[in-house]
């Protein structure tokens, strides 16, 4: 069974890599019809399940919401540590490690964020971003069921994250690390909570975008791709695309 699982993963990687142009600048649509169908499915799922949960979550007292958000962010920091290292960004390795240690101890398992107060500001890094810093282009743009907008590179990164992320090692792979171990349920509970926290945070904004977009699919695609570019650059530099405007 394990061999079969590994073959499936290897095949998936091969398929994804086949859509990864190494120096591609912009993400091309390769399966737009499929992506749009998946997008519709995701929106229906959002309307029926995720949005109502997010609205309920938003009604929780602020300390609970902030604590939950801090807790999931603290766990996400674990993924940033190996990725910052792979990117050769030792300063960020320090920020991520320091932040995780301080918040997990002084910050009571990450529910508080004292690390921020002492100047530790970890960037969120993942394998998709690491590949981006190596010059790997985004490849095809696609929409994943439930997970939403992605690219070939980022989808590959999403799978690779589970091999790099210490939290995934102690949960879905059930390895023991410093005497701590977990299971699939722990992993997916944290990921699900992260998603709800994000959705709740952006509830009004998504409604506004939905109301004012001629083509919501394209708007969200643009927002996603711009955000990924910024995260790879670790800056929000403005790309001057106005120079060619004859005006």
């Amino acid at each position, binding site marked *: 069974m394990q061999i079969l699982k590994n073959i499936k993963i290897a095949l998936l990687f091969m398929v994804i890599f086949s859509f990864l142009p190494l120096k591609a600048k912009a993400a091309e649509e390769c399966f737009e019809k499929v992506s749009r169908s998946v997008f519709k499915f995701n929106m229906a799922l959002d309307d029926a399940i995720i949005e109502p949960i997010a609205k309920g979550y938003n009604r929780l007292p602020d300390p609970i919401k902030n604590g939950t958000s801090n807790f999931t962010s603290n766990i996400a920091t674990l993924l940033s540590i190996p990725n910052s290292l792979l990117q050769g960004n030792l300063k960020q390795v320090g920020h991520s490690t320091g932040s995780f240690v301080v918040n997990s101890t002084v910050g009571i398992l990450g529910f508080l964020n004292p690390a921020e107060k002492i100047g530790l500001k970890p960037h969120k890094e993942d394998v998709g971003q690491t590949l981006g810093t190596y010059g790997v282009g985004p490849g095809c743009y696609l929409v994943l069921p439930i997970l939403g907008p992605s690219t070939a590179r980022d989808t590959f990164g999403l799978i690779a994250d589970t091999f790099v992320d210490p939290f995934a090692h102690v949960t879905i792979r059930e390895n023991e690390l410093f005497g701590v171990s977990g299971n699939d349920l722990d992993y997916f509970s944290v990921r699900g909570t992260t998603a709800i926290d994000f959705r709740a945070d952006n509830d009004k904004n998504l409604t*506004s975008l939905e109301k004012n977009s001629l083509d919501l699919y394209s708007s969200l695609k643009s927002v996603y791709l*711009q955000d990924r570019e910024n995260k790879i650059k670790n800056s929000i530099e403005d790309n001057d695309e106005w120079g060619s405007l004859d005006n």
Partner: protein
Amino acid sequence: MKRLVVSFISIFFLFQSSLVAYSSNPKDFVNELVVDAITKLADKNLNKDQKIIFVEKVALENVDVKALGLYTLGELRKSSNEEDILNYQKSFEKYFLKSLTSRLTDYSSSKFEISGEDKKSSNYTIVNSKIIPTDGGPELKVDWRVYTKNPDKPLIRDLIVEGLSLARTQKEEFGSILSSNNNDIKILIEKLDEFVNN
């Protein structure tokens, strides 16, 4: 991506300001315009319709809507005929104003601070600012692309919220509509009109 979508809300309404003439210095221009807008929007003596009229007038005076329209049209602006461009510009302006004013309802009071400026060329200055919602929401970094070709009358061409360019997002949205309709500008105009009339 956490704050980014947050951006889209607060943003457009910040284009607003009063009908007074603002400074020609880009940093002061943005500061005066936004502070004025925040004051007006928080004014309980003005009803929603009055605020909409105010926003529309101020947007038309201080935002380079014409250039924004051309930018969002992408390469098609070079290959389309004059009449189509003119029709597009008319529809785009209505679309822009409706989209802008509809976001008014989402307004919540915020503190505004200019944090710097970067003169890119004689035509452009990027003014950096921060918006701090008073309800405890996350702080937003907003950069204003100010067109300074006429140094006496700066105009806003884009807002970059947490690294997300509103103009680019709009351009890519329109680009998608055009590419799935054989780059037919008339279809885009129809869709803009449909939005305005709904």
